[in-house]
């Protein structure tokens, strides 16, 4: 049977062995330490859970202090593509920022100068970076400023800074109103973990979060290797002449790739389930969660990356497939915004929920999450259909891959 033969071919390929090694490595280095300690109502305190209050009374003064400090040093922290970009504005744009600060605070020019003279200058450490900053505290807030107008101003400031700044209206609550959870709130998180997630679903989410990072790129290597295997073995023309339909051949290969690449994930989920059963004997964990959550979460990742890998390899070359997929992965990773939970949008490809807790934040976006997974599954199937069409055209001799700038260009297909 063709499917079995394709699976055997994949099992014997070095790309698949390296793929398995990478998934297992990710599992044991990143996720496994999370299973070191049993979560109980007392140990949960050590997770230092925080909450986002989102109260304008907390957000506005903190954001204004931060903005004034950045204005004084003319250094604004932005993360337009995930990496830190220290923005220094020209005098016209910096004056606009000053105008906004004056509007929010009601200070005049002289008072601003006095405030600057009274502020201490320091280097602020952000991750691995250090930025120059003025430490400004207690900038007065005009009493008649509404939160709506404040958000509007912050949006305009974010636009001036080129986006991705600390003052993006949607991020204000996270950046400026984070505070530690109270004991009662922590216990509520624990109750959600035990009663609603039934333990295993929480671990399933965290497992998916870690494995999702690598599964958004590494399946492309196995897919590209399988697609180009015929050509390497000089079997492509022999396969072209067979009676089997292109649809059946491509879908069989796609299914074989997806199934084989899902196996290491299944193994990781099984190990997790076994460990949970051992760790939480008395709490009757619902083990199904350790399988269903990674299944829904990670299968679309494997499917889309595999389908795109096959499609681009057929259209251009394996190298192009790797380049495109790696670039897409890099952009996805860089665009991932903090906090690493409760931020799953309708088109987020690399979904993150880097915690065993915050179930309510995850459930808030659950419909988006489901839409997202269905959308990428459909996109994967569409990419496979496109691969079928390309393969069919190649078989008929009507197409031999896209060659940019003519057949003698440097973009021509290599052997």
């Amino acid at each position, binding site marked *: 049977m063709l499917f079995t033969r394709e699976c055997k071919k994949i099992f014997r390929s070095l790309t698949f062995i390296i793929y398995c090694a990478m998934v297992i490595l990710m599992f044991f280095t990143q996720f496994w330490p999370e299973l070191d300690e049993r979560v109980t109502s007392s140990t949960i305190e050590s997770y230092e859970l925080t909450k986002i209050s989102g109260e304008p009374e907390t957000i506005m003064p903190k954001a204004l202090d931060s903005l004034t400090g950045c204005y004084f040093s003319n250094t604004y922290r932005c993360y337009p593509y995930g*990496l830190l970009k220290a923005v220094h504005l020209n005098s016209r744009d910096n004056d606009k920022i000053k105008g906004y600060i004056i509007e929010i605070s009601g200070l005049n020019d002289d008072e601003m100068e006095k405030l600057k003279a009274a502020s201490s200058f320091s280097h602020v450490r952000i991750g691995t970076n250090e930025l120059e900053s003025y430490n400004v505290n207690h900038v007065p807030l005009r009493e008649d400023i509404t939160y709506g107008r404040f958000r509007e101003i912050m949006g305009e400031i974010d636009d001036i800074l080129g986006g991705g700044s600390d003052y993006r209206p949607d991020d204000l609550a996270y950046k400026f109103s984070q505070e530690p959870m109270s004991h009662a709130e922590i216990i509520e998180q624990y109750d959600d973990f035990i009663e609603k997630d039934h333990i295993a679903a929480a671990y399933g989410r965290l497992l998916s979060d870690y494995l999702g990072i690598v599964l958004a790129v590494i399946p492309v290597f196995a897919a590209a290797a399988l697609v180009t295997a015929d050509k390497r073995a000089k079997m492509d023309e022999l396969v072209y002449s067979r009676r089997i339909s292109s649809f059946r051949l491509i879908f069989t290969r796609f299914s074989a790739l997806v199934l084989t690449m899902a196996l290491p994930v299944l193994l990781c989920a099984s190990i997790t389930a076994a460990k949970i059963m051992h760790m939480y004997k008395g709490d009757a964990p619902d083990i199904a969660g350790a399988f269903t959550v990674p299944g829904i979460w990670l299968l679309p990742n494997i499917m889309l990356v595999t389908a795109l890998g096959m499609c681009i390899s057929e259209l251009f070359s394996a190298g192009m497939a790797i380049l495109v997929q790696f670039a897409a992965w890099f952009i996805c990773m860089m665009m991932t915004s903090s906090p690493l939970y409760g931020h799953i949008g309708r088109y987020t490809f690399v979904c993150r929920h880097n915690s065993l807790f915050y179930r309510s934040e995850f459930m808030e976006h659950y419909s988006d999450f489901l839409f997202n997974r269905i959308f990428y599954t459909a996109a994967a199937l569409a990419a496979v259909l496109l691969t079928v069409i390309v393969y069919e055209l190649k078989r008929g001799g009507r197409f031999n891959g896209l060659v940019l700038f003519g057949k003698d260009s440097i973009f021509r297909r290599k052997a």
Partner: protein
Amino acid sequence: MDWCYSARIVYSDVRHNFLLHYLLAAAVVFITPLFFSVSGLDSRQAAQPLEMIISLTGTVLLTPVFMPEQNGSIRDVIRSKKTPYLLTCIVRLCIDMLILAALAGISVLYMKKCRSEVTFLHFAGTAASAMALGSLGFFAAGLSNNVIIGYMASLLWYIINFTAKDKLGVFFIFSMMNGSFDEKKWLLALSFALILLTFVYLSYVKYKI
């Protein structure tokens, strides 16, 4: 005499096989300032684009050295020629390393011009990280005779540096971002060891010279 033949061969396959890779590596360098801040950065901030982006030129340049002969028929023809095949590969590798150093140098000089605090150590560190990524790809591609495996090994190491940074010790390629340059000499040593091992394997095991 062999070197003369090799130079002609390399001139030919640079034109026909590697120009795209050189252009891609150059594109990585020239696109970086469009997306990431490179001006007015201190030593650690300056290391971020250099280590995270510019180091990828190593993967692009060094991994495909054996690619033209991945096709067995071409390899057989090449190996029947008087000029040793591996000598051609060594010349290719030397050219790639020169381009890699030039691109790292251009990046560092540009950042210096943009008033970032970069020194010769940043240049050496960037080149070492790029060499490490590239040489792993070169090693894997050479041993497996499959450039896809080479890219896979190289990019997986890059990804591991994102996720398991504290577990890599002296083989952490983003160390300059933490203000440490010590790891770079180990990376450079590892690079040359991998390149040497590849040639030893190809010479004495695969092709049995």
